[in-house]
């Protein structure tokens, strides 16, 4: 029962057995059925070319000298010795940068190469270009840095002290990057009137993305002056603007291409190697330059999930009706904004969850430190606050001796009601149904029997958590897609993938949508990957938006192209467009009496008619929970949310402290399901990262130095660590999304940690506040409670 297989079996798997041809390509796929990923055959044979896979005989290698100290004034960079290393072609410093030498998404506070001072160990100080990786390594080692150490600030609370060293002297609010404060009803004061108040302060770890493909790419300065950068990036269009500004180039000169990524999860939501590659290529005209961070360099330099400290106080009456909530969250954002302000603001919006609480005071701060950079990571500030709220709700349930599911049920918002963050819940909200599904599911309904059957020395527990996650950008930054769909002169369809595919499969979904609406097999369709010279700006691969936003634009394009084809075919066949339909390779009369092949029909269309461009901007919330324009700019609030309930069944080993996850259920409302197999992929992958977050993954930093520098010390779950997971869906229809769908990429990560925490508490009474729940931590807590 506990390892039940996924319920969403593909309705039709149409791959012919034994052949290279994936035969689903030759039939017209429907939306709502499992449609095999079209990128899979090239990936499974090793043919797919990622940014890391480019090699050329005249290719140069670039790499950086990382600072290695957390805070220091840069007095000098001496490059003579490095330049003298055989095979070294160029050694570049901030002096070689003609632009602003600053990058960042909101606040451009991160140098390409350090000029004034080092702000964390992973800062790039000098860029070396060499003929081969060996010469590159020698060159990097030969760069001499003269650094004057500065006192650092490593604790976000200390960072807010007036005497604390400043990470950015020019920031008007000192080390406070951004603060959000929402008060609903009487706010904190209402706690005093509550019959029951529970509280806890949680410490959640820094989590590393650990995508398999570390940051990489290659660049070349072409003969016409174009700087072409191919990179493993979630954000080619934003990169283009950042690189141009940082390096002092006209936007038109920079071209960014984004092939399939070898994983991203938010860690490639922003510039990593792009400007460095550009700088290297500018210094070595005509020769391609490649850069590919080692795992250790990647761990040191890349942004992480924000470590947080969250104090949560929750008041209710004795019947379990929530009355007041006070949340105070401190996000350690490291030395650069990156996306820290936006992450924190999304946390603020979700801090009260989807619950009816008349009085709330939500306070979140993102604070600069000299720790590793924090930024976007699947969930984007939300898993932290969901953990705090849900674990505190669980405490309340125990205090009131209430069923934790029943406690949620009593307080769940209905569509149109306002959350503690004063945001209205959307019409498409299947959360109550998700809870109902959980309540009758064996994992939950039979938990007492399962617990009673625990083996010797093992304690079993089952816990749940509710999660919601906003879809798309906030009200200010336009969440837009510009789709392009084209029929080439031979009648073949070309689908422009405007948003990077970091592995979630949106490129395949775009083919799926086009094929479905135009009644064509995907076989023979061409997919154009994101490229600032070919596709149109359609935003980042992030915010659970890749299908949600671009899918609508693409569907509109498909409808328009279809209309044009039918009009032309009607003229040819002497019929009305309404009497015609598209079928594989042809437009035909519905009664089957006449047809015209697309390859022929296309000759009647001008090049302009063969190409359709559409624009779609996702709707934005008109609500203003706060008058603070900075919070609006940073994304507060949203109007579309995905929802879920997650259940963990765990076994705690009394002798070792090890927590084993024996079963995991996610019941989710992601709107209409376009492709059950891809939905399951997203849920399972998201849960896996959530389980890592709950149980193993931690990148502590001591005085700004990370203590888990590689995959031998930073523990990513293996196949042996994870259970079989079950995924169920409650389908709703979201009017803003394509065909009723919402985004799903992030939500499944959000409730995992609190579900596991609740399960552990259920198993052994341990109300943990420090995560991850490593065996050491659990064992010590068990021993302490035994001693007590």
């Amino acid at each position, binding site marked *: 029962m506990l390892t039940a297989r996924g319920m969403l079996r593909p309705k039709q798997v149409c791959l012919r057995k034994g052949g290279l041809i994936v035969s689903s390509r030759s039939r017209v796929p429907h939306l709502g059925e499992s449609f095999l990923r079209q990128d899979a055959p090239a990936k499974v044979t090793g043919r797919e070319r990622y940014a890391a896979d480019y090699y050329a005989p005249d290719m140069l290698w670039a790499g950086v000298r990382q600072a290695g100290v957390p805070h220091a004034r840069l007095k000098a960079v001496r490059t003579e010795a490095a330049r003298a290393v055989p095979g070294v072609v160029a050694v570049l410093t901030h002096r070689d940068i003609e632009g602003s030498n600053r990058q960042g998404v909101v606040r451009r506070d991160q140098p390409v190469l350090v000029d004034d001072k080092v702000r964390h160990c992973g800062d790039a100080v000098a860029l070396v270009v060499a003929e081969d990786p060996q010469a590159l390594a020698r060159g990097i080692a030969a760069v001499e840095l003269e650094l004057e150490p500065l006192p650092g600030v490593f604790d976000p609370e200390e960072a807010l002290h007036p005497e604390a060293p400043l990470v950015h002297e020019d920031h008007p609010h000192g080390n406070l990057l951004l603060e959000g404060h929402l008060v609903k009803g009487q706010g904190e004061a209402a706690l005093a009137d509550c019959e029951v108040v529970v509280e806890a302060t949680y410490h959640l770890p820094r989590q590393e993305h650990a995508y398999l493909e570390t940051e990489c790419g290659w660049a070349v300065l072409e003969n016409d002056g174009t700087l072409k950068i191919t990179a493993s990036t979630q954000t080619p269009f934003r990169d283009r603007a950042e690189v141009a500004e940082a390096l002092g180039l006209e936007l038109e000169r920079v071209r960014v291409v984004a092939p399939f990524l070898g994983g991203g999860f938010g860690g490639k939501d922003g510039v990593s190697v792009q400007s460095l590659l550009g700088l290297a290529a500018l210094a070595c005209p005509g020769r391609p330059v490649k850069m590919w961070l080692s795992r250790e360099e990647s761990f040191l330099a890349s942004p992480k999930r924000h470590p947080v400290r969250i104090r949560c106080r929750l008041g209710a009456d004795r019947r379990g009706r929530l009355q007041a909530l006070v949340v105070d969250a401190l996000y350690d954002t490291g030395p650069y904004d990156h996306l820290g302000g936006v992450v924190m603001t999304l946390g603020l919006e979700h801090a009260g969850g989807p619950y009816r609480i008349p009085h709330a005071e939500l306070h979140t701060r993102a604070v600069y430190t000299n720790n590793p950079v924090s930024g976007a990571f699947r969930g984007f500030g939300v898993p932290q606050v969901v953990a705090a709220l849900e674990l505190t709700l669980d405490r309340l349930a125990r205090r009131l001796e209430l069923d934790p599911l029943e406690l949620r049920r009593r307080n769940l918002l209905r569509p149109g009601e306002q959350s503690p963050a004063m945001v209205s819940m959307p019409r498409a909200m299947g959360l109550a149904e998700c809870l109902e599904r959980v309540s009758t599911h064996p994992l939950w309904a039979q938990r007492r029997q399962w617990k009673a059957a625990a083996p010797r020395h093992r304690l079993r527990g089952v816990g749940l958590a509710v999660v919601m996650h906003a879809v798309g950008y906030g009200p200010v930054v336009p969440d837009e897609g510009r789709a392009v769909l084209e029929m080439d002169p031979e009648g073949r369809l070309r689908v422009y993938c405007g948003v990077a595919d970091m*592995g979630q499969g949106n490129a395949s979904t775009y083919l799926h949508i086009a094929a479905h609406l135009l009644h064509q097999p995907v076989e023979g369709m061409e997919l154009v990957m994101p490229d600032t010279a070919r596709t149109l700006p359609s935003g980042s691969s992030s915010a659970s938006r890749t299908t949600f936003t671009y899918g609508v634009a693409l569907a509109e394009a498909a409808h328009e192209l279809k209309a044009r084809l039918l009009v032309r075919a009607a003229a040819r066949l002497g019929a009305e467009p309404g009497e015609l339909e598209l079928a594989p390779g042809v437009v035909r009369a519905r009664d089957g009496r006449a047809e015209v092949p697309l390859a022929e029909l296309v000759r009647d269309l001008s090049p302009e008619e063969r190409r359709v461009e559409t624009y779609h901007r996702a709707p934005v919330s008109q609500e203003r929970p706060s008058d603070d324009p900075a919070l609006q700019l940073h994304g507060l609030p949203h109007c579309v949310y995905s929802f879920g309930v997650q259940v963990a069944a765990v076994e705690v080993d009394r002798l070792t402290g090890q927590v084993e996850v024996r079963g995991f259920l996610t019941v989710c409302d992601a709107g209409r399901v376009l492709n059950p197999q891809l939905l399951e992929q997203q849920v399972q992958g998201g849960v896996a990262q959530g389980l890592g977050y709950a149980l193993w993954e931690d990148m502590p930093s001591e005085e700004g130095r990370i203590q888990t520098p590689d995959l031998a010390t930073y523990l990513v779950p293996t196949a042996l660590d994870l259970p079989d997971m079950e995924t169920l869906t409650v389908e709703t229809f979201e009017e803003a999304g394509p065909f009723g769908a919402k985004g799903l990429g992030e939500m499944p990560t959000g409730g995992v940690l609190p579900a596991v925490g609740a399960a552990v508490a259920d198993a052994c009474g341990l109300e943990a506040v420090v995560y991850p729940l490593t065996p050491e931590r659990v064992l010590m807590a068990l021993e302490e409670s035994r001693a007590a």
Partner: protein
Amino acid sequence: MQLEFVLNGRPVRLETAPDQRVVDLLRGELGLTGTKEACGAGECGACTIVVDGVTRLACLMLAAQLQGREVLTIEGLAAEGRLHPLQEAFVEHGAVQCGFCTPGMVLAARDLLQRNPRPDREEIRRGLSGNLCRCTGYQKIVDAVAAAARRLEGVEQ
């Protein structure tokens, strides 16, 4: 040094530095970029190849160690343009997301099925535990390997 070995069924002879890592030789010199590198330290399994029938990590081997050996990379698995049943199962069962672990995972699974043609799910998990995947949570990979095992058994019967 003059290096001679058999690569995906074809003899290869080339001049190379003996201490070049095999992953660099395959990717950089021979253009076989299906063998991925993700840690360079034997932690992740992305560079898994098969040497004389045994899975090896190409980031921990040096070119000279290939002398006279028979090497299989992911590019050599789809013989005559037909996907290997494992590759087919990975596609069908949705075991591929970003795909960067996939080549190594497929070769590790092949090795497992050669040693144990009828593994249960736990044995599959154990057999793949040296290969990290960050996208899938492994479940669909286990599904794919179990399905491929059934298919391969059927072929052999």
